[in-house]
């Protein structure tokens, strides 16, 4: 028996079943949307007393609510109604011997409006709330075991295995009065409340109940499916359930586009193809050689389908793939830009015409689709833009290569001219402050020191990798500089020029050189400790080699600075020029913005936007 109802957008359905084992259904229910009253009762007691108890309580609750609902607040009303029912059942039990001990559980709910409900219960009939796909239990069973758990005398695990886990601590009818638990529930759009007897949750898993409640099916289907679920689980008890659904929230713009919008778009597919055909799609060079119908299918139909899927899924991936395939294929065939632009324009025009059609019938949907389809077309442009930029980079790289080849020819010609003079690079001193005769403090070099330096460098060489030619060269230079009795910079400058050679002034040329210098410093410092000499001599060697290293690094740095000097100068010039140009651009930008503003105030704004400008739209 299914009861369905709807009021104030709240949809309700209730269902009950005797189950597969019992002969009588001792459950009862109230589904009363007029009063917003929904109740599930599960009667108990021998000799058919259970059904009498639940029906007596049901009638008592209904009558009480009908009588007092306008004068009592919902929370007090349901509590008092249940108390009244308890007294009624108790009195009925007292009147006939065979009904002694009869009683009933109850879970009831008064839905005040679409935003508020009050739930009350006694016993182990339950109320659940489904919100955002999650189910929570609103009631706590009134069983002896559950109360022991509440008092901390039993653990949850122990309670689960307890032999008296189903023995109720409260029901209606055992005494004239009972304690009623009442809970206020704030309803949100789309929430579902479910009331049920233990015949449901005792024979169906919590996961399955959650799945069915959250399925999105109509309440009557959910109520029926929940009953079926309990029956499939054995149906060992009577089973009753009521599903109450708060009004669904209005669909968001995205949902409208994904559902109605996508459908409306797809329904106008033939109109889209027709406009594309009328606009000359089949004559576009990109589809040259194809049968017109084939061309329409390949291009227009594909885009129409891509837009449909993107609308449906709120993505842009299909239009992106479409545009990339079309543009990529055309570029691979060395196609010109103009046909591709014309093709995209035809498709955009057809798309806008279809959206305009939809807008005539449903302006709101037309507006939403207009934005969604425009965005889809932008995604197409982004995909094409990526390909164009890639090609631009490739052409730039080729241009650089051609320029470099041309520059190489010029350099070779200049080098040949230099060789003709017979001069070498190192014969042209270019660092004015590094004059060979510049005096420096001479530390004086004794024969013992020279021997110790040579010994150190020999050890350092043996510690250097075979392939580290540059480091070895630096070690030799350090030795020469360190034992130079004159103590001036000449040997350092000459050594630096030999090491520097002809290196490109960039990271690949300069950094390995300074790395090698640093490595040589570390190796020599370590090697000093391995020579056989007194500590004082080791200290002298270390000082001499450090000094040599400093001079070599100084001279090398001088050469690097000299080499980059023209570039630095040029860089400064370019930076100054760039800054000047930036200022100019900013000035013109401001000027243009002023002019645009001025122009904007003189145009006819009664014209549609796309027809206002001087440039043809």
């Amino acid at each position, binding site marked *: 028996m299914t009861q369905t109802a709807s009021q104030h957008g709240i949809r309700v359905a209730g269902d009950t079943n005797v189950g597969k084992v019992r002969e009588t259904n001792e459950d009862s229910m109230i589904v009363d949307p007029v009063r917003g009253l929904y109740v599930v009762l599960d009667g108990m007691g021998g000799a058919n007393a259970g059904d009498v108890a639940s029906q007596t309580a049901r009638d008592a609750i209904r009558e009480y609510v009908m009588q007092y609902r306008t004068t009592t607040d919902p929370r007090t009303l349901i509590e008092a109604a249940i108390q009244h029912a308890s007294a009624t059942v108790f009195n009925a039990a007292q009147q006939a011997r065979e009904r002694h001990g009869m009683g009933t559980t109850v879970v009831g709910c008064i839905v005040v409006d679409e935003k508020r409900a009050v739930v009350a219960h006694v016993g182990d009939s339950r109320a659940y709330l489904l919100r955002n796909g999650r189910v929570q239990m609103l009631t706590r069973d009134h069983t002896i075991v559950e109360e022991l758990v509440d008092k901390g005398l039993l653990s949850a695990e122990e309670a689960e295995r307890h032999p008296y886990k189903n023995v109720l601590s409260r029901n209606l009818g055992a005494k004239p009065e009972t304690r009623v638990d009442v809970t206020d529930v704030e309803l949100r759009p789309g929430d579902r409340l479910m009331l049920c007897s233990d015949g449901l949750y005792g024979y169906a898993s919590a996961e399955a109940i959650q799945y069915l409640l959250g399925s999105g099916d109509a309440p009557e289907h959910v109520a029926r499916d929940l009953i079926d679920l309990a029956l499939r689980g054995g149906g060992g008890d009577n089973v009753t359930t009521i599903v109450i659904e708060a009004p669904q929230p209005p669909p968001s713009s995205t949902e409208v586009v994904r559902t109605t919008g996508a459908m409306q778009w797809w329904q106008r597919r033939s109109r889209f193809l027709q406009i594309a055909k009328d606009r000359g799609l089949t004559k576009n060079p990109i589809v040259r050689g194809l049968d017109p119908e084939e061309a329409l299918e390949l291009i227009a139909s594909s885009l129409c389908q891509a837009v449909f899927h993107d609308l449906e899924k709120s993505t842009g991936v299909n239009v992106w793939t479409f545009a990339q395939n079309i543009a990529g294929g055309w570029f691979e065939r060395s196609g010109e830009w103009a046909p591709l632009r014309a093709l995209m324009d035809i498709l955009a025009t057809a798309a806008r015409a279809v959206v305009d059609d939809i807008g005539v019938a449903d302006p709101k949907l037309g507006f939403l689709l207009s*934005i969604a389809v425009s965005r889809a077309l932008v995604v197409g*442009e982004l995909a094409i*833009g990526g390909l*164009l*930029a890639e090609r631009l980079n490739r052409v*730039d790289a*080729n241009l650089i290569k051609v320029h470099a080849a041309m520059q190489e020819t010029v350099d070779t010609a200049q080098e040949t001219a230099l060789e003709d003079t017979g001069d070498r690079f190192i014969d042209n001193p270019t660092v004015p402050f590094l004059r060979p005769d510049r005096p420096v403090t001479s530390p004086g070099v004794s024969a013992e020191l020279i021997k110790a330096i040579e010994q150190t460098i020999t050890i350092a060489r043996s510690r250097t990798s075979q392939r580290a030619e540059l480091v070895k060269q630096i070690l030799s230079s350090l030795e020469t500089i360190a034992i130079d009795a004159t103590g001036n910079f000449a040997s350092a400058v000459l050594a630096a020029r030999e090491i520097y050679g002809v290196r490109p002034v960039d990271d690949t040329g300069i950094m390995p050189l300074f790395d090698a210098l640093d490595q040589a410093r570390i190796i020599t410092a370590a090697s000093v400790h391995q020579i056989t000499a007194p500590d004082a001599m080791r200290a002298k060697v270390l000082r001499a080699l450090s000094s040599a290293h400093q001079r070599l690094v100084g001279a090398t740095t001088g050469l690097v600075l000299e080499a980059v000097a023209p570039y630095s100068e040029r860089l400064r010039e370019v930076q100054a020029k760039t800054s000047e140009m930036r200022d100019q651009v900013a000035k013109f930008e401001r000027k243009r913005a002023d002019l*645009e503003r001025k122009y904007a105030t*003189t145009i006819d704004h009664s014209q549609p*936007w796309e027809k206002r400008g001087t440039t043809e739209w």
Partner: protein
Amino acid sequence: MSTEPPLARAYDNLRPIILQRLLDMRATLDPSFGRIDEATARAQISAVLEHLGNFLASGDLGSHRAFLQTFLAMRAAEAQGAAAVLAMLVAIGDTAAQVAQDELAGSIDGSELTLLLTRVTATTARAINDLVAEELARRTGQWNELAARERGKP
């Protein structure tokens, strides 16, 4: 003839909010915006938003193209490629439309402005691709010429 169309006025009122939202997400617009200080980023994004306002009022595609051409060149000088510029301008347009939708929800102006800004973004994307395609054709021609000259050498 009106001196200030209502949609342009509505856009102008929203500009500070759009600007702030763009500044908050500037590093996602383009990494180069994330590296520069807020004042500079504010000036650069403001220039784009101001131009968008003028384009909304005038609908003049010619001046819009001219602006985009300069903008592409300026961003290229900051080592930003054409695809990145396109993505950035689309993101700016989308954000502006989103702000219009959020801030003027339910009003006719809000709907019209959102739609107009979406169309402006589509127009911008189209124009950028046209400009890049023209530049590509120009450079391809240049390369062909230089390559031919190189091949012609003895």
